[in-house]
C-alpha cells in the first residue's frame, strides 16, 4: 500500500509540473466558469436546474470525454518512451500496483479540477439555497464517470508510446461509449435492441438521476465494473508488452 501511495504522489507531482496540466486547468476553469455563468442566466433562479445544466449538459460531457485522456496520456506512454518504466517495473512493484497508482493519480487530478468549481456554489449559497444533497450526488456522478474515463485513458497510454496517440485513442473509446446512447433513436420504443444499447451506454448509466439527487445503485456498479475491467485489461496489456 505504501508503494502505491508513493507512486501516486510522485505521479501527481509530475502532473503538476507539466505545462499541459496547467493548460488543462486553465481551459477547464474558463469553459466551465462560462458555462456556469450562462446556465445561471438561463435557469431563472432554479438552482436544481443549474446543477443539471452544469453537470449533465453537452459541455459537461465534452469535458468528460476530453479531459481524462489528456490528463492520462503521459501516464504510461511517456514512461515507456523515456525508459523509466523499466526502472519502475524492475523494483519488484507489481504491474497492477503501477497501473492502479497511475489511474489514481489521474483520477485525483481530474477530481481536483471539478472541486475547483465548488467555490462557485459556495458563492451562490450566500444569495440562494443550494441543495447540498443534489450537488453531492452530481459530484458522485462526476467521480464515477471520471473513474471510468480515466481508466480508458490509462489503457490507451499502455497501448502506445506516443502521448498524443494515447489521448486520441482514449477520446475515441470514450466517444464510442458516449455515442452508443444515441443509437437508440434507430429503434422504436420497446425494441429489445434498446436494452443492449443501454447496457453499454455511458450516458444511460449516468442519466438525469444523479443530477436530480436520485441515487440508483446500478450506476456505481456499472461504472465500478467498467473501471475495474479497464484497469485489468491495462495490467494485461502492460504484462504482454513488457514480456
Amino acid at each position: 500500500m505504501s508503494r502505491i501511495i508513493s507512486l501516486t504522489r510522485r505521479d501527481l507531482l509530475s502532473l503538476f509540473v507539466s505545462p499541459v496540466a496547467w493548460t488543462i486547468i486553465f481551459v477547464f476553469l474558463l469553459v466551465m466558469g462560462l458555462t456556469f455563468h450562462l446556465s445561471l442566466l438561463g435557469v431563472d433562479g432554479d438552482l436544481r436546474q443549474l446543477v443539471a445544466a452544469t453537470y449533465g449538459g453537452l459541455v459537461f460531457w465534452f469535458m468528460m470525454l476530453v479531459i481524462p485522456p489528456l490528463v492520462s496520456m503521459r501516464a504510461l506512454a511517456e514512461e515507456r518512451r523515456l525508459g523509466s518504466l523499466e526502472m519502475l517495473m524492475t523494483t519488484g512493484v507489481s504491474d497492477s500496483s503501477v497501473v492502479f497508482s497511475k489511474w489514481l493519480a489521474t483520477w485525483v487530478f481530474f477530481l481536483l479540477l471539478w472541486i475547483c468549481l465548488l467555490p462557485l456554489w459556495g458563492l451562490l449559497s450566500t444569495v440562494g439555497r443550494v441543495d447540498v444533497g443534489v450537488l453531492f450526488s452530481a459530484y458522485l456522478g462526476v467521480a464515477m464517470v471520471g473513474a471510468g474515463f480515466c481508466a480508458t485513458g490509462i489503457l490507451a497510454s499502455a497501448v502506445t508510446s506516443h502521448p498524443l496517440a494515447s489521448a486520441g485513442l482514449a477520446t475515441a473509446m470514450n466517444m464510442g461509449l458516449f455515442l452508443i446512447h444515441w443509437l437508440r433513436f434507430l429503434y422504436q420504443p420497446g425494441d429489445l435492441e434498446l436494452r443492449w444499447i443501454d447496457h453499454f451506454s455511458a450516458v444511460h448509466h449516468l442519466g438525469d438521476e444523479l443530477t436530480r439527487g436520485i441515487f440508483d445503485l446500478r450506476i456505481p456498479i456499472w461504472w465500478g465494473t467498467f473501471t475495474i475491467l479497464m484497469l485489468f485489461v491495462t495490467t494485461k496489456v502492460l504484462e504482454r508488452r513488457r514480456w
Partner: protein
Amino acid sequence: MIEVESLSLSFGSRRALEAISFQVPSGSVTGFLGPNGAGKTTTLRVLTTWLLPDPGTTRVVVDGVDLLRDPRRACGRIGSVLETVPLPSELRVCEYLQLRASLKGIPRASISSELSRVLQEVDASDVGRRRIGTLSQGYRQRIGLADALIGNPPVLLLDEPTRGLDPRQVTHFRQLLDRLRGDHTILLSSHVLGEVEQICDRICMISEGRICLEEDRDAWTERLATAGSIRVEIAADNPAIKSDLEAISGVRDVVADGSGWLLTSDSDVRQQIGTLAREKDWTILELRRDPATLESLFLQLTVSGVAT
C-alpha cells in the same frame, strides 16, 4: 551468485540470445563484454526481470532465487544501473532516492539513514538537495548507482556505469567496486576493456547472442601471455616465404603487413623463425612480438556488431 543455463530470447523472428549459459560466482566482479547488438543489454534486462526469456530456457538463478518462478522476489536481490539512467528532472536527488527506497520496500524509519549511506558510497552527498535536472551527466550516473545500492542488494548489474564520468570519478568508481567486491556479486557490462582488465575477476564475452568466452582472470591472463602476434620483415622477395612461415608449428595465420608479415600463433615462435631464417638464408630486418591484449582477444573472438 548468478547462474544462467540455456537462456534464449527472441524478438519476433530474430533470436537475440541463443541458449547462452554462464555463471557469475558469489562476490566476484565479472566483466560482460561484446560488441554493440551482441546481446549484453538484453541479457541484463532478463536478469532485471524486465524481459521474459523464451520457454526453452532451463535456469536463471539470482542469489539462490529462481527468476523464472519468482521474478518479484528476484527483483529484491538485484540492484541495477541501466545503460542510460532516465531520472525525473523535476525531483530533488533525495526525493527521488526516497521514492526508490520506498518502492524497494525499505522501512520508512530507515530510509533517511539508507539514503545517507548510498549517497556517501557514490560520493554524492553534496547534491542531495539539488534538483536532478541541474546535475551533470556524471552526477546523474552516480545517482543511478546510488539507486542500485539502496537496500544493499547482493547482486549488482551495471550496464556501462562509467559512461559520462570524468577520470577522477572513474577512479572513485573503481575504488567503490573494490569495496563492494566480496559482499556483492557484480556483473559489469562495459566497452572500456582497460577498465574491465583492471577491475574484473572474470570475463564473459558474448557475440551474436552466443557466449564465446568465459574465463577467470588466471585463465585469460595465461591466454594473453601465450597468444599474440609476431611481426617479421625479411629482406628477400621470395613467394614461398608465406608458406614457409605457415608451416611453422603453432602458427595459425600469416598475413602480409606492409613490407613484412604478421603471424598469429598459439605460442611464441620467434625462435623457430630464427632457425628457419638460418636454414633458408633469409636476412631478418625485424622480428617483433606484440603481446595479446584483451582488445585483440575481443577483436579475435567477436564479430563486428550489428546495431539493433
